[in-house]
């Protein structure tokens, strides 16, 4: 097993290089660069100064040379500095000679995106699993239909619209919840406890909005998995042994129906670092989605590449984890890997 994991890890290196090479070229296909976007067609920005900037950022060199330079930096895990954001480090904090620490852009955006996504994934699982089970048990009855309609409404509803409606209802009309941001103005003077409550209150709507769209996938997945398993012979065996319906459903059927979910969760690991641009803009949350979107609009190449590389790495890790977890959960797969 260990050998297998090491082998997979080593395979990641050429894959990452391939992915980054393709990303780098595709990124360069878009017209314009930081010198077009930053000076924003301002007559005060002279062409001469722009050429100077291009040279400073190595944008005047052939793409393959630029990629080589980037790869050379990446070899030392140096993600570089942003073009557009006053040379902030892309990934992790740096310290200048006077001891001033500048936080990395991804370092700053990642935790909040991760928190919201993990919470909403947890919420999705907590709601979608029971819904899926109920749907399967009441197949084609009213409860099943109602649940399916409900999760599809959640899936189809435009998130930004629902977000604005909820913000208006809970924030303006009733003042139950804050509208946007992550903390209230002036909350830094409050006690630790109040600050935490304040923070949680700010998270409720973003987590809810990002969860509501994800319900459909997992609940239908669970429903179909359950339906398949419930028709297996061993379920009939379990029933004929005289086990209670609860034991049959939760002890035998659900556990087996959940196996494919492991793959699904493994594949959603890279999704955890990707925020939604629209939700983050509306809720004024400084997360990964907005960071990436702004970087693309500004042609801030180091930031784009940094996020893509980390995303690619996490996707590969997610695949590996899913495979390993699957092997751990399912003896048949485990035996296949060992051989």
């Amino acid at each position, binding site marked *: 097993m260990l050998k297998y994991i090491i082998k997979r890890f080593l395979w990641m290196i050429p894959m990452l290089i391939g992915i980054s090479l393709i990303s780098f070229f595709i990124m360069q296909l*878009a*017209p*314009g660069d930081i*010198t*077009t*976007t930053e000076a*924003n*067609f*301002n*007559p*005060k*920005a*002279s*062409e001469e*100064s*722009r050429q*100077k*900037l291009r040279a400073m950022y190595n944008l005047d060199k052939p793409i393959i040379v630029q990629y080589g330079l980037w790869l050379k930096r990446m070899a030392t895990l140096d993600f570089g*500095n*942003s073009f*557009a*954001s*006053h*040379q*902030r480090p892309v990934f992790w904090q740096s310290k*200048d000679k006077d001891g*001033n620490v*500048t*936080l990395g852009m991804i370092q*700053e955006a990642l935790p909040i995106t991760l928190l919201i996504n993990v919470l909403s994934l947890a919420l999705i699982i907590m709601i979608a699993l029971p819904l899926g089970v109920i749907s399967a048990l009441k197949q084609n009855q009213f409860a099943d239909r109602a649940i399916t309609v409900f999760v599809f409404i959640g899936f189809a509803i435009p998130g930004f619209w629902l977000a*604005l409606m909820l*913000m208006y209802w809970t924030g*303006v009309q009733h*003042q*139950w*919840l804050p*509208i*946007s*941001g*992550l903390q*209230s*103005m002036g909350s830094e*003077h*409050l*006690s630790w406890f*109040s600050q935490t*409550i*304040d923070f*949680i*209150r700010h998270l409720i709507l973003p987590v809810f909005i990002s969860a509501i769209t994800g319900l459909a996938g997992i609940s239908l997945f669970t429903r179909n998995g359950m339906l398949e398993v419930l028709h297996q012979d061993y379920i009939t065996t379990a029933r004929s042994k005289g086990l209670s319906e609860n034991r049959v459903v*939760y*002890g035998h059927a659900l556990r087996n129906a959940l196996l494919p979910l492991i793959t699904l969760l493994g594949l959603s690991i890279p999704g955890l670092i990707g925020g939604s641009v629209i939700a*983050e*803009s*509306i809720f*004024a*949350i*400084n997360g990964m989605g907005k960071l990436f979107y702004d970087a693309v*609009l500004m*042609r801030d190449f180091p930031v784009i590449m940094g996020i893509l590389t980390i995303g690619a790495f996490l996707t590969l890790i997610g695949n590996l984890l899913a495979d390993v977890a699957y092997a751990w959960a399912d003896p048949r797969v485990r035996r296949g890997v060992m051989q």
Partner: protein
Amino acid sequence: MLNMFLKSSQTPSNMHRIKWLPFLLLSLIFLNSCDNANHSSAQTDYSKQYPAKEGGTLINAMTGEPSGLIAMTAGESAASAIADNIFNSLLKYDKNLDLAGELAESWDISDDKKTITFHLKPNLKWADNQPLTSEDVLFTWKLVTDDNTRTPYGADYKLVIRAETPDANTFKITYAAPYAPALETWASLHILPKHLLKDQDINTTAFARNPVGSHYYKLEKWKNGQYLSLVRNPNSTQGQAYIEKLTSRIIPDKAAQFLELSADNIDIMGLDSIQYSRVLPARPELNKNIALYKELGNSYVYLGFNLKRQPFNDVRVRQAINYAINKQEIIEGVLLGLGEPVASPYKPGTRWSNPALSPYPYNPDKAKALLKEAGFSDTNGDGILDKDGKPLSFEILTNQNKEREMTAVLMQRRLKDIGIDVKIRILEWASFLGRFIEPREFDAVVLGWSLGLDPDQYNIWHSSQQGPKQFNFVGYNNPKVDALLEAGRLELDPDKRMKIYHEFSKILLEDSPIVYLSAGYGLNAIHKRVQGISNPAPPAGIGHNTHEWYIPSQYARNELSEY
């Protein structure tokens, strides 16, 4: 996981304990609304005027976060919006957009017009109590002209061939030739402290996020992605502002900003025309708390022709299109009436704007006559004019901007009326510039230029400025205009200069290389707790005197309370 949950819920003693905990938390989280409710201002009457008083916090919303607060390297508008409260320039524009001293008490221009001497106000100080002297000004000039400084704005300052500091209060610069826009450049260069930056790399220095300036405010806190707050600088070189604290919240979405304004969490935001003229007037409960202000905008939208292409090389065709477009309709339809037509690239009401000029009136008959004169007629009866077998048809390009798209559609319809076939293409900004503007691959564009504070328009209209990345991308070439633009750069006397640019605007309007479409108003909503705002706004806009705004303590926002 589910199994575990089922098991634990089977033991009744646990059940009780678990049951009330979530409810307690939920009630804490939701039911503090009574605290928040007391600042919901339904009860407060904001119509009373109080005398000016120090104190209070003004919260505004901005869509983007600055990358740093050194304007010369940051470049974006969010950065200068904040930095303008922290740093001073030598000069400033007063409320009528005339130049006035800021750090400089006065300035003299030598007889040969090549040397400008600035006399600083006495005893200026930085926020950290160090003296601010001409050494700092010299240092800033060296920075902005340094080849290692990553700024797109160095060119104007590189025209200075000698900069000297005869004494601590005098800064003297010499240009190779008289350069009239020079004064404007010294009104937009934030003076930076030498004692803090002299050993730093300006491109990476932490000073950009922790600045020390000399203006009304200093940075108190910068919470990334959330807000920046400024407090009054006791050492301000310009006297003291009334409002104690300025907080700028970063809320990228305009709709979310509007909700925050409705919930009284922010005091000031920029509105779009729909919010201004439809949404707010329809909400009496909001109108009690919020006042609306409009000011002259900073830019105008135009239809620009590629003058190197047929048929736009013919002035009659350009004039015909100008007559065929109904500007009032665009202002009514796109800006909901919240804009003005312009006839020159200068703000109406300022000295540079020629009062004798007026926009081309809507006159389709005259347009048709001009096109006929230019040789266009509908020979094949398809409703589209043609000449030499080629239909009069062109494509308007614009970037993803709802107002510009709508403007293009309205023009398309009016041009169809006189027999011109127009197609519209919408593009992302960087591709628009890179693939169409730079290689000059366009017929016509809808774009905007700013209504400049300094009248110099050399970069945009002089025939020498047509290189691939230069700004005369329409390809305008008129020796008379070239001569005027050159003369305008050499003339430092404001009145003589005014005559030059009035003449320039007149020729430009006649030649019609672009069609001036509209100049939208800047629209603001400000909570009525803020007093001391001049209304109607002078040419410099509503924000020209923010240091005189105040918030009476009776109207101050309540502090947050503990849960």
